[in-house]
């Protein structure tokens, strides 16, 4: 039977009469998380499990001369003390773009906090007592701690060899570069990766500009604080390697692990119970190889849990220094933008090359820019390695792009809304040539934003309003699969490799299946994130789950329905075109009908069997054009500044979530408010501070994250639903949008309140006070 023979009969007509999709349903995981019953990786302790403790480097950059493990090994209960010397026969590094990341430091350490030795004990006490007794002898090397030091002509090299890295788009569909260690070229500088974007004639356009505005701005080094720090448990069985981990992308972790142990992908199983938040920091491989080498050496299950400090020294977000220059006509039309983003990426590449490419793509904004020259560098330094962080380069890029527009608005005598309106693209217009046109109505969104902000604006002194817009080429590379299994009683199991990380995907998948099959949500069960029992998913990132996994689930439901219809036509001995869809079942000829369960039971001839529907998504059809969708960010704030202390109060926070279709409006609001609040975090409070080789605030008491008391006085989270996405019912992703342009919105609001333009975030009270008083960033105490 082919599709064309089936009667075209959507279960539910477009946008109306939906029973489950679009409803603010209670989250599936709510109760067990609130009561503490939910299982996280930390709760998984296999029988006979050993415990690992990491001995970290206490130098920024040093050659390892000797590791003395004798005292540690003498501690009762210590089972193994592992260094990179013990990894003979394994591929000792990982990294999905360039495999430069040592599992345990090889020959030298590249940052304070780098894992050097893994101590394994019967329990945590013996392992940590053993860890205290490992003696490491180093030969100190000069360290490069900042962008300037790393780019100095005679700078010490963080990596002596160059690793091949690929261009953006998909990073050759994101496969890691092949092991090039034998043929590696010697490195000549500390540049991890470069990226460029160019069209038009920038030189000529600047020459023709009436007004040219230049901005230089620093984006802080951040930690994407998730309540659950990294942890993994690994063991080898006759079936291969099994790792349970706090990972956003279990399938990508599987690839790294398969390379380390030279195992077929099928023999590596990575599963993820609930994830206690991720914000991008749990994308890609983290502790999994450490736990796995522990299990490989001891031949027992090994569990590794780090604290917040250990997590910060595992992954943090790229700091950035961005220069943006824009040429305008006298009435504020953009003629050209020229810019450079430099990311301070730490000791290993991890995902920074992609973050860089995205920062360059996302710096110039959703505007008509006829001439562009954008460049970016990601730079190695002897600091904790940086990788993905919510927004993926957009916060770093948009900060310069948007702040520059606000400075221009001041010079051009235009208000920030009007300047944006004069340059903002309309729906369908391309901002990256050859890519998908913008699938959002930003003019309408900006109108909603302006209306709300102006409604409650105060004209008191030391108050200021700032707005920010951003557009992210989101969705990542469109590869997704899903399986829907209809049972003999009409209930259904949906299997997806997408991770429930607190964003509510579990509920969204249930809503979709219930909607598509016409069955109650109560009879839909979800199996997620298990490479050994489920369905493939590339990543849970780039705000893609509802849109791309949603499409795969929708298609899997369609496939299951098709199979049921085929079975029914056999049962009813009729041609397939006489079978029609009903909620939870089918109708046949002569007024006959049957539920899914009845069809399955009659076809198998027993109260047994099931129907499996499979759905896939690839670069084809609606997802042919890249990116799969644009995630826009539309935010505004009003701030009040204490003229004496520089303390900033956020009076208003307004966001527009332009999501096409809100599968669960409550979840969309939560995502937008969460993203906006995290954005306020890096704008006003958060910054990892290095003093010498080491971070001075590697904990959440001193690394100041937003708290309930910081919540703005007025919060207006609006949702725009225009059905303009490629996902189910016109959905697009949410979850990063409001974070991306929050920095420039806050910075320009403070600039309007104080009359001074800042050159760095976060705008802590002291920074604002110094800004107001024309004082330097720090005092010369010498």
């Amino acid at each position, binding site marked *: 039977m082919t599709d064309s023979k089936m009667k075209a009969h959507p279960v539910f007509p477009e946008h109306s009469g939906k029973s489950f999709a679009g409803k603010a349903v209670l989250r599936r995981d709510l109760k067990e998380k609130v009561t503490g019953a939910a299982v996280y990786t930390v709760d998984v302790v296999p029988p006979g499990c050993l415990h690992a403790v990491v001995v970290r480097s206490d130098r920024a950059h040093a050659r390892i001369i000797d590791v003395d493990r004798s005292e540690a090994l003498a501690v009762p209960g210590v089972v193994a003390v592992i260094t990179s010397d013990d990894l003979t026969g394994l591929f000792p590094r990982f990294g999905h773009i360039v495999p430069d990341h040592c599992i345990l430091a090889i020959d030298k350490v590249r940052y304070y906090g780098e894992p050097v030795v893994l101590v394994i004990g019967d329990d945590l*006490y013996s392992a940590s007592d053993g860890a205290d007794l490992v003696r490491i002898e180093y030969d100190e090397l000069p360290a490069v701690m900042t962008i300037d030091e790393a780019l100095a002509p005679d700078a010490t090299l963080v990596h002596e060899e160059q690793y091949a890295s690929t261009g953006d788009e998909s990073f050759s569909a994101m496969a890691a570069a092949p092991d090039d260690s034998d043929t590696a070229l010697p490195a000549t500088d500390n540049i991890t990766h470069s990226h460029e974007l160019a069209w038009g004639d920038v030189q000529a356009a600047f020459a023709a500009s009436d007004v040219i505005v230049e901005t230089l701005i620093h984006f802080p080094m951040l930690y994407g604080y998730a309540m659950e720090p990294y942890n993994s448990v690994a063991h080898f069985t006759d079936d291969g390697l099994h790792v349970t981990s706090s990972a956003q992308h279990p399938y990508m972790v599987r690839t790294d692990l398969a390379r380390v142990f030279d195992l077929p992908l099928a023999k590596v199983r990575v599963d993820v119970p609930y994830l206690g938040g991720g914000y991008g920091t749990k994308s890609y491989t983290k502790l999994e190889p450490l736990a796995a080498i522990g299990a490989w050496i001891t031949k027992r299950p090994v569990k590794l849990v780090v604290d917040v400090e250990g997590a910060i020294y595992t992954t943090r977000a790229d700091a950035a220094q961005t220069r943006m220059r824009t040429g305008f006509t006298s009435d504020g039309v953009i003629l050209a933008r020229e810019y450079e983003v430099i990311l301070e990426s730490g000791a290993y590449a991890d995902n920074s090359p992609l973050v860089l490419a995205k920062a360059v793509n996302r710096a110039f904004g959703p505007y008509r820019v006829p001439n562009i020259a954008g460049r970016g560098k990601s730079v190695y330094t002897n600091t904790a390695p940086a990788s993905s962080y919510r927004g993926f380069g957009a916060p770093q890029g948009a900060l310069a792009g948007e702040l520059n527009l606000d400075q221009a608005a001041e010079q051009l005598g235009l208000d920030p809304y009007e300047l944006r309106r004069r340059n903002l693209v309309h729906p369908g217009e391309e901002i990256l040539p050859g890519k998908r046109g913008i699938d959002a109505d930003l003019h309408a969104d900006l109108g909603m934003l302006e209306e709300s902000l102006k409604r409650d604006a105060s004209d008191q002194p030391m108050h200021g309003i700032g707005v920010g817009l951003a557009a992210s080429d989101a969705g990542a590379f469109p590869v997704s699969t899903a399986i829907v299994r209809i049972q003999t009683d009409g209930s259904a199991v949906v299997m997806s490799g997408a991770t429930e990380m607190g964003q509510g995907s579990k509920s969204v998948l249930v809503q979709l299946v219930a909607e598509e099959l016409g069955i109650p949500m109560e009879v839909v069960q979800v199996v997620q994130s298990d490479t050994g029992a489920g369905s493939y998913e590339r990543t849970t990132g780039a705000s893609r789950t509802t849109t791309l996994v949603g499409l795969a689930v929708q298609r899997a439901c369609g496939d299951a329905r098709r199979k049921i219809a085929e079975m029914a036509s056999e049962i009813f001995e009729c041609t397939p075109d006489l079978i029609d869809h009903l909620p939870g079942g089918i109708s046949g000829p002569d007024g006959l009908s049957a539920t899914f369960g009845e069809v399955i039971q009659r076809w198998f001839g027993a109260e047994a069997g099931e129907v499996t529907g499979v759905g896939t998504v690839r670069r084809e059809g609606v997802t042919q054009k890249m990116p799969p969708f644009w995630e826009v960010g539309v935010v505004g704030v009003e701030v009040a500044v204490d003229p004496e*202390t520089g303390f900033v109060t956020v009076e208003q926070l307004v966001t527009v979530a332009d999501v096409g279709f809100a599968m669960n409006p409550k979840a969309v609001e939560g995502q937008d408010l969460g993203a906006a609040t995290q954005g306020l975090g890096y704008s006003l*409070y958060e910054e990892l501070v290095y003093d010498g080789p080491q971070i001075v605030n590697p904990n959440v008491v001193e690394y*100041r994250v937003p708290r309930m008391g910081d919540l703005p006085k007025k919060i207006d989270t609006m949702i725009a639903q225009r059905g303009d996405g490629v996902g189910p019912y016109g959905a697009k992703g949410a979850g990063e949008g409001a974070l991306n342009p929050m920095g420039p919105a806050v910075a320009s609001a403070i600039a309007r309140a104080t009359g001074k333009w800042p050159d760095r975030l976060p705008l802590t*009270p002291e920074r604002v006070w*110094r800004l107001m008083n024309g004082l330097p960033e720090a*005092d010369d105490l010498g």
Partner: protein
Amino acid sequence: MLPPFGLARPRSVSAALAELDEDSVPYWGGTELLLAMRMGLIRPRQLVDLKGIAELTEVRIEDGELVLGAGLSHDEVARDPLVAEHAPLLAYAEALVGNARVRAQGTIGGNLCFAEPRSDVATVLSALSAEVRLVAADGTDGADGTDGADGTRERRLDMAAFLLGPYWTDRQPDELLVDVRIPLPVTAGVYLKYQTVERPTVGVAAVARGAAGCRLVVGAVGELPAGFDFEDVASVDAEAIAGELEPTPDLTGSILYKRHVTAVFIRRALAELAEKVSAP
């Protein structure tokens, strides 16, 4: 991680005193102690858990003093009716300590004995001229104080004598802080703090004294609370006082900035005090 330790659970002060030594230390809320142990800064053999001693959580008026048991949590002090009536300034400050967990678990005794410089409690108690009562088992060579009841020795110290520096008090290892005593009546006062992270950057307490004067205590910004007495509030030079202090620079502020906000908060506190005193 938390290292292993022994745990004693005495039910009376005298039983607790019998357990105390250099390596066997008092433990109440653990909000500071357990963190320090987790970080490996101290590794006592035994913790003496004081939570089973009822008399350490009493509030009463005795001999013209408001007596607060050392084991009262910040929340309990903030909500106590006697404190609200006789020392509302302390109740107000206690309600603003740290965060909900710290207020529920942390005690005034623990706060004073740990002597973290960024304390609200020490600042306010200094302004209220409070004293602490320390008790040790008799016959020990601890302090040269007066004899207490029931085979114990005890001494009373005011805040300046008790707090010697950051994380440093005059408490001897065999001594227990049993209560805090605030002389009554307490005059009108204000407490204002500037806090952007978990602990205050500066706390300013000002209590009316005489017709136009005040006692001013500036805490949290330097190593110890600094007290000043003025005959006339109007004559106070906030900049000069701030200039005398030695702020500890940290992530919440440089020396320059901390001096500046100290002066701002002294001015604000004195203005508020003047308003309070002049109000009917």
